[in-house]
C-alpha cells in the first residue's frame, strides 16, 4: 500500500512528499546516487527572482475541465493567470476542432476588510453567483496566500452548501507561499479531482480506456490510432475532459502521462486506490522513451505482439530520415532548461539525435515519485552518462544567463515562458517546447530534430538582437561562478 491519502482534502507539498528540491548543482550521477541513497539537501539562494506558484498550475488544470468551474478565493490578481489560461484553453480547443469558449475562473475578489473580518460569506456568495451564471457540473475552490494566512475555512463553507447545490464542491489547496515547487499545484488539482470527483469503479471488469494525462493533446489523433492497435481508447486529462469522464477514470485499464511531473501523482493514486496500473517508465519522448513506455503499456494490456509489430514498422519507416537528421546535427551542443521530467527526458532525446548536451538545468527535482522510486528518466540518464552536469533552480534567470554565457551552446532548449528569450538576446539559438508532444515517439523525434535544424540554420534574429541589446546584469555578476549565490547545504 502506498502513502497517498485521498480521504484527506489536502495533499502534502512536493518538498515534504517527494523530497523535491529547487537548489542543487552537480552531476546527474551524484544527483541520482544521493536521491537513491541518503537524499539531496536543498540549497537556498541569497538572491532570487520571481518564479511561479502552485496556484497557477492548479487552477489552470482545473479551469480547463470543460464543464466545471473554478472559484479562486483570493484577491483579483491571483486570477490574472486565467488570461493566459484562456489562451492555452483555446489553443487546445483549436487542436481538437472544438467550439471556442472562455475558461471559467471566477475571483471572490478578496479586499482589505476581508483580511481582518474573514470572507467565508463572500466565498459562499461567489459560489452561488458562479453556479447561477454557468450551471457547471462541479465547482472547485482554489485557495490563495490570503485565504491561507487569514485561515479561511473553505471546507466548512463547501459542506454547508452541499444541501443547496447538487454538484461536487471541492477545495483545492494551492497557497503560493506553501511550496517553491509550482508543480505541487498539479498535485493539488489532481488531488481535488481524486477527493471530490473520481468515484470507485462500478464494475469489477475494467473498461477499454487508458487515462492519458497531458496538457493540450496535439497528438490526439496519432495516439487514438496507435492505441486502437492495442485495443484501447485514450481518455485525455484534464483539459477539455468532462466531469463525467473524470468520475470514471478509476475504471480504466491503465494510466500514462506525457510528463512525469504532471501525471505521477494521479497515476500512482489511481493505482494505489483503484488498481489502475500507472506506467512508470521514462516518458514517451524520442525513441527509447517511447519504446520503453509503449512496451510497458503493452505488457499491462496483454498486447505485446501488437506493440512489437508497431515498433518494428515505425522504426524501419523513420530510419532513413533519422540518419539524415543525425548527420546534420553532428557536433552540435545544447543546454536544457525545463521542468525535471521534460528536462531529463529531452536530454535523452537530444543525445539520441547526436546533440551533445552540455548542461541540463531543471526547475525543480523530485527525488522520488509517489511510488517511492527516483524518476526513471533520471536513473536512465545517470546510467548513460553519470558525468552530465545538471543544476536545479526555480527558473532563476540570472543563473541561466550566466551559465549560457560560459557554456555558449549552439542551442538552448527550454520549456516554460520567459527563458528562451534570454538565450536569443545573447545570440544563442533557442527553442521553447510549447507542445508537450514536440518529440513524441517516432514522428516526434523527426519533427523535433527538424525544428532544431531550422533553429540552427538561420540565427539572424538572435545574432542581430544580441548586437543591439544590453543584458540586465552587471559585469560583476557575469564574471562570477554561475552558482555562487547558491548557499551551502544546511544553510
Amino acid at each position, binding site marked *: 500500500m502506498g502513502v497517498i491519502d485521498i480521504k484527506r482534502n489536502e495533499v502534502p507539498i512536493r518538498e515534504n512528499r517527494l523530497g523535491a528540491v529547487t537548489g542543487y548543482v552537480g552531476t546527474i550521477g551524484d544527483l541520482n546516487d544521493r536521491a537513491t541513497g541518503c537524499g539531496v539537501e536543498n540549497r537556498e539562494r*541569497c*538572491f*532570487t*527572482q*520571481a*518564479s*511561479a*506558484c*502552485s496556484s*497557477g498550475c492548479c487552477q489552470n488544470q482545473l479551469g480547463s475541465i470543460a464543464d466545471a468551474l473554478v472559484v479562486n478565493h*483570493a*484577491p*483579483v*490578481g*491571483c*486570477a*490574472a*493567470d486565467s*488570461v*493566459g489560461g484562456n489562451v492555452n484553453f483555446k489553443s487546445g480547443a483549436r487542436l481538437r476542432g472544438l467550439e*471556442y*469558449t*472562455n475558461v*471559467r475562473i*471566477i*475571483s*471572490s*475578489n478578496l*479586499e*482589505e476588510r476581508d*483580511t481582518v473580518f474573514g470572507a467565508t460569506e*463572500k466565498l459562499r*456568495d*461567489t459560489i452561488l*453567483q*458562479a453556479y447561477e*451564471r454557468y450551471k457547471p457540473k462541479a465547482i472547485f475552490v482554489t485557495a490563495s*496566500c*490570503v485565504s491561507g*494566512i*487569514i485561515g479561511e475555512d473553505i471546507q466548512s463553507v463547501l459542506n454547508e452548501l452541499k444541501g443547496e447545490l447538487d454538484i461536487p464542491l471541492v477545495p483545492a489547496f494551492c497557497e*503560493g*507561499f*506553501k511550496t*517553491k515547487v*509550482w508543480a505541487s499545484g498539479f498535485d493539488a488539482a489532481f488531488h481535488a479531482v481524486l477527493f471530490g470527483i473520481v468515484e470507485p469503479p462500478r464494475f469489477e471488469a475494467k473498461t477499454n480506456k487508458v487515462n492519458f494525462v497531458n496538457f493540450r493533446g496535439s497528438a490526439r489523433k496519432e495516439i487514438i490510432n496507435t492505441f486502437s492497435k492495442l485495443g484501447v481508447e485514450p481518455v485525455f486529462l484534464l483539459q477539455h475532459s468532462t466531469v463525467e469522464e473524470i468520475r470514471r477514470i478509476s475504471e480504466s485499464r491503465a494510466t500514462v502521462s506525457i510528463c512525469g511531473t504532471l501525471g505521477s501523482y494521479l497515476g500512482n493514486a489511481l493505482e494505489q486506490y483503484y488498481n489502475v496500473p500507472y506506467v512508470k517508465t521514462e516518458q514517451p519522448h524520442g525513441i527509447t522513451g517511447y519504446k520503453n513506455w509503449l512496451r510497458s503499456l503493452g505488457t499491462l494490456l496483454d498486447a505485446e505482439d501488437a506493440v512489437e509489430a508497431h515498433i518494428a514498422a515505425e522504426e524501419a519507416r523513420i530510419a532513413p530520415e533519422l540518419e539524415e537528421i543525425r548527420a546534420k546535427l553532428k557536433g552540435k551542443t545544447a543546454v536544457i532548461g525545463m521542468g525535471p521530467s521534460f528536462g531529463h527526458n529531452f536530454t535523452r532525446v537530444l543525445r539520441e539525435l547526436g546533440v551533445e548536451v552540455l548542461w541540463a538545468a531543471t526547475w525543480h527535482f523530485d527525488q522520488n515519485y509517489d511510488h517511492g522510486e527516483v524518476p526513471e528518466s533520471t536513473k536512465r540518464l545517470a546510467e548513460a552518462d553519470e558525468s552530465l552536469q545538471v543544476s536545479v533552480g526555480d*527558473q532563476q*534567470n540570472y543563473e541561466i544567463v550566466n551559465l549560457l554565457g560560459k557554456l555558449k551552446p549552439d542551442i538552448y532548449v527550454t520549456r516554460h*515562458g*520567459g*527563458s528562451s*528569450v534570454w538565450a536569443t538576446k545573447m545570440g544563442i539559438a533557442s527553442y521553447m517546447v510549447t507542445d508537450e508532444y514536440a518529440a513524441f515517439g517516432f514522428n516526434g523525434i523527426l519533427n523535433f530534430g527538424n525544428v532544431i535544424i531550422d533553429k540552427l540554420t538561420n540565427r539572424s534574429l538572435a545574432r542581430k538582437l544580441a548586437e543591439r*541589446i*544590453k*543584458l*540586465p*546584469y*552587471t559585469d*560583476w*555578476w557575469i564574471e562570477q561562478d554561475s552558482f555562487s549565490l547558491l548557499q551551502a547545504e544546511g544553510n
Partner: protein
Amino acid sequence: MTTQIIDQVRHVCTLGGLQSVLAIERAIPVLHAGPGCGQKLWGAIGLQNGGQGSGYAGGHTVPCTNATERDVVFGAVDKLEEVIENTFKVIDADFFAVLTGCTSDIVGDDVESVVRGFQKQGKPIVWAETGGFKGSNFIGHELVLDAIFGQYLQPAAEKITGLVNIWAVVPFQDPFWTGVYADLAGLLRSIGLTPNVIFGPGGGVTALNLVPAAQYNLLISPWVGLKGVQQLEEKFGTPFLHYPVLPIGPTETGKFLRAVAEFADLDRSVVEAFIKEREEHYYHFIERAAEVLLETRFLPRHFTTVTDSTYGLALAKFLVSDLGLIPDRLYVVDGIPEHLQGEVRDLFKDLGEGIGAEVTFTPDGGAVQEELRATKFRSRPLILGSSWERTLAKELNGFVLSVSMPVSDRLVFDRSYVGYTGGLRLVEDIYSAILADFQ
C-alpha cells in the same frame, strides 16, 4: 450585501503596479511577495496584452523574495534586505522600487525601515505597500507614483519654461501605452511645448529627475493619476491641467489642443495652423475610404464598449463625434472607486452631437457578457472590448476588436489611437475587422 465577484479579469491587483516601475527605462521593481505574483501579473497585463514581454528586466528577471511558509510565520525582513543588497550587485539598473504583496502586508513586515536604510546610503530606491487585496492595478499605479514622488523626487533649482510632464494611461494595462505617451508628446511639441515623458523608451531616470522642474503637469485620464498631480502641486508648486478625455480623432484632438493652449497661454495661431494641417491629412484618408465606411456589406450602426474608463470615454467620443455611430451599451470595467463613479458617469453624458450614454460600472466581465447575451441588437453589434469578447461576438454575430486588457489576440508596438493619426489607425482597425469578418 452582494459580493462583487470578478469573472474574466479586466485588470489585476495593486501589485500590478510593478509594471509601472518597469515602464520607466532602467527602473526595476523588487517584489517582496509570493513566488507566483510576478508571473501571474505580467502574464496578464504584459505578455497576454498586446504581446508585451519581459523587455529589459521584466518577467522572470524581476527580483523577488518568493515568500515561503516560514516567511509568513516569522516575517522576512532579513531576507528582503539580503535580496535588495544582491539586487544592487547583480542587476544593472538606475532605479529600484520595492513593492510588497499580500503576504508581507498581512504579516506586517517593516519594509519601510529596510528601504530607509538603503535610502540613507544614497541608493535610488523607494517602497510601496501594494498588497493585492488593496485594490486594482490602477490603484497600484497611483501607489507607485506616490512612492516615487514622495520618497525620491527633490525640488528643482529652477523651473524650465514650457516643460510639461505627461501623465496619462496606465503603462502595460493599456497595451497601446507606449504609443499613447509618444503621440501625446508629439501633439504637445507641435504646439510649442516641451513634453517630458517618464514612461517608455528614452525617458528613464533622466526624465524622472526632470519632473520637479516642469512648468506644468498634464493629466489626461478620467480619474487615475489625479492624486499624483495634486501631490506634485503640493510638493513642487507645479500647476496641473486635468483633462479627462484621451483625444482620438479630429474633434477631440482639436478640443484638447485648444484647452492645453489656453491653459499654457500658447500662441493660438500656431495651434490653429497645426490643427488645420492635421485635419486636412485626416480627412484626406476618410474621404478616400468613404466607400468602405458607407457601402461595405454588414456595416454596424451601433457600438458597444467593454473597456476601462479612459478608453470607454475616448472611443465613444470619437465614434459619436467623428464617425456617426451610436452608442449601445457602454461598460466600464476598471473598478473605479465608488466615490469617483459619479464624475466619470457625467463625462459620458455629452459624447457630441447631442448624444449621451448611460454607462454601467462593473469589474465583472462575465456579468457584462451575460447582459449582452440577453440584449436584442438591431444590427450586427460592433464590440470594442478585450479578447474575452471574441467568443461572445461570435455568439452575437457581431464584429469584435480587442482594445482593452486583455488584448491577447494582438501584437502591439508603438501604435496608438491618440490624435489625428491615431484616429486613422482606429478606423483602419475597426473596418479591417469588419472587412475580414465575411471574407
